């Protein structure tokens, strides 16, 4: 039996939010989002329309390709939308779902990818939000995720509002899945082995926790098999977890050399 890692759990929880008819954009440098989109299409929502780095409806592929040779992903797709075409598609509200990985998300569903406070309380700049502010205003359903579950990621109020429109339907963390019920976020499920008290303590905004939440569904064997053999054989999703980042970077360096 293959060990189930934290990134697998987040990928599966994100994939499960997809619905038939969804049009989903995958952003840059978010391998967990890329893997979740493909996994959803393979085993849950066959008609899911994926747009990854402009490539429309790409064939099933190793997500490392997007880092190493994005032109391969583009070649094996229906075609490539330009950046302007994608931004126009967003503005016509034709994108229905996106997985985003902000530095912070708060109880009002506001996203911060711009600036966070350092240990001295000073605001320090992150690389920038790309289209975060736009997708927050224009995409029907956003699902935020991060391999973290602490007041740093889930503050009472974000340090800076990059995306403010509050269309965040769910949040997947290292300990739980949160869902917005129209009024506030509630705990939809708790990852196996996590105590309900930890879920409450790690979140600084008001969170409905009853203590009788179900466990987060384990990724089925079929999903793990697909991830390990086809979608993410090099474990690039680990770039987004603290425990796996160094191994993932080392793996990425190896395949970069091979691809030349």
């Amino acid at each position, binding site marked *: 039996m293959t060990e189930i890692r934290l990134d697998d759990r987040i990928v599966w929880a994100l994939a499960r939010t997809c619905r038939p008819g969804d049009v989903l954009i995958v952003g840059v440098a978010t391998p967990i989002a890329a893997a979740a989109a493909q996994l959803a299409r393979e085993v849950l929502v066959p008609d899911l329309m994926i747009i990854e780095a402009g490539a429309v409806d790409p064939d099933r592929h190793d997500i490392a390709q997007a880092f190493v040779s994005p032109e391969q992903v583009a070649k094996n797709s229906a075609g490539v939308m330009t950046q302007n075409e994608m931004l126009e598609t967003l503005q016509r509200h034709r994108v229905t779902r996106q997985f985003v990985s902000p530095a912070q998300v708060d109880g009002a569903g506001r996203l911060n990818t711009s600036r966070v406070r350092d240990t001295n309380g000073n605001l320090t700049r992150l690389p920038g*939000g790309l*289209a975060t502010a736009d997708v927050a205003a224009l995409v029907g359903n956003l699902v935020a995720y991060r391999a973290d579950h602490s007041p740093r990621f889930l503050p009472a109020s974000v340090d800076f509002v990059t995306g403010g429109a509050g269309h965040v339907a769910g949040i997947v963390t290292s300990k739980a899945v949160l869902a917005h019920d129209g009024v506030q976020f509630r705990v939809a499920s708790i990852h196996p082995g996590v105590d309900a008290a930890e879920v409450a303590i790690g979140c600084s905004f008001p969170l409905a926790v009853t203590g009788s939440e179900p466990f987060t569904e384990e990724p089925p064997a079929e999903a793990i098999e697909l991830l390990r053999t086809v979608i993410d054989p090099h474990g690039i999703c680990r770039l987004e977890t603290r425990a796996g980042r160094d191994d993932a970077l080392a793996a990425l360096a190896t395949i970069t050399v091979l691809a030349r």
Partner: protein
Amino acid sequence: MGNSKLISRVDALALVPDGARLAVGGALLRRKPVAFLAALAKAGRRDLTLYSFLASLDVELLVALGAVSSVHSGYVGFEQLGFAPAFRTAADSGAIEAFEYSEILFTTGLRASVAGIPFLPTRGAGGSDLIAELGLRTVTCPYTGEALTAVPALRPDVCVLHAEAATESGTIAAPSTRDFLFDADALLARASDRVIVTVERIASDEEVRESGALLYAFEVDAVVLEPRGAHPGAIPGVHGPDLEILRRYLAAAPSSARNAALALIEESR
């Protein structure tokens, strides 16, 4: 065939004076005119205002070498490799002014400029702190009454791009691999008053008719032959990024960004 637009790098550098508002083409680590920008910084340029849609080594090198007073962009970083250390330090300390845009806010400003109008309305970035921080105002739709953000035209003085090939008369060949970000270069160029394009090689008119054009000769002021001009960044379909050089830079920059930048320029030749 028109007159030659081909000029030397030294002559092209003179088109970007101290204090210029300089638009830099390419996106993330792709098609950045690294060789030209390195030469510009080494020539001692100061007080540049940079416009770079999705920036990486372009903004980082110019900031590390002290050439910049402000930066307008939607992103400055190295994706999975990490943050841009010199940019981050300078922005946090106030040594440079950093203006963060969303992708739609930035491209809407450019599209107003290419259409020759003072602003364009958008719903992009609605509800974001970026709108107030950038000083953007609201406009009311005269037909529906809807409030929209009015993004003023972004009109840089001069734009520098890197491309695979151009004719001597200045028609720029479309990239051999048209990734999703290639169109951003034409938009940026057309939004700017003057356009410099550095190229890997000079191509015949026949070849560029075959490949198609990114920009036409009348839209280009200068072509500069700059082989390996995007290295250690990438040109999609031609060469990947040199991740070893970039990693060495990112490891060395926190102790001295200036020395690390000079070492990177030396290694990239």
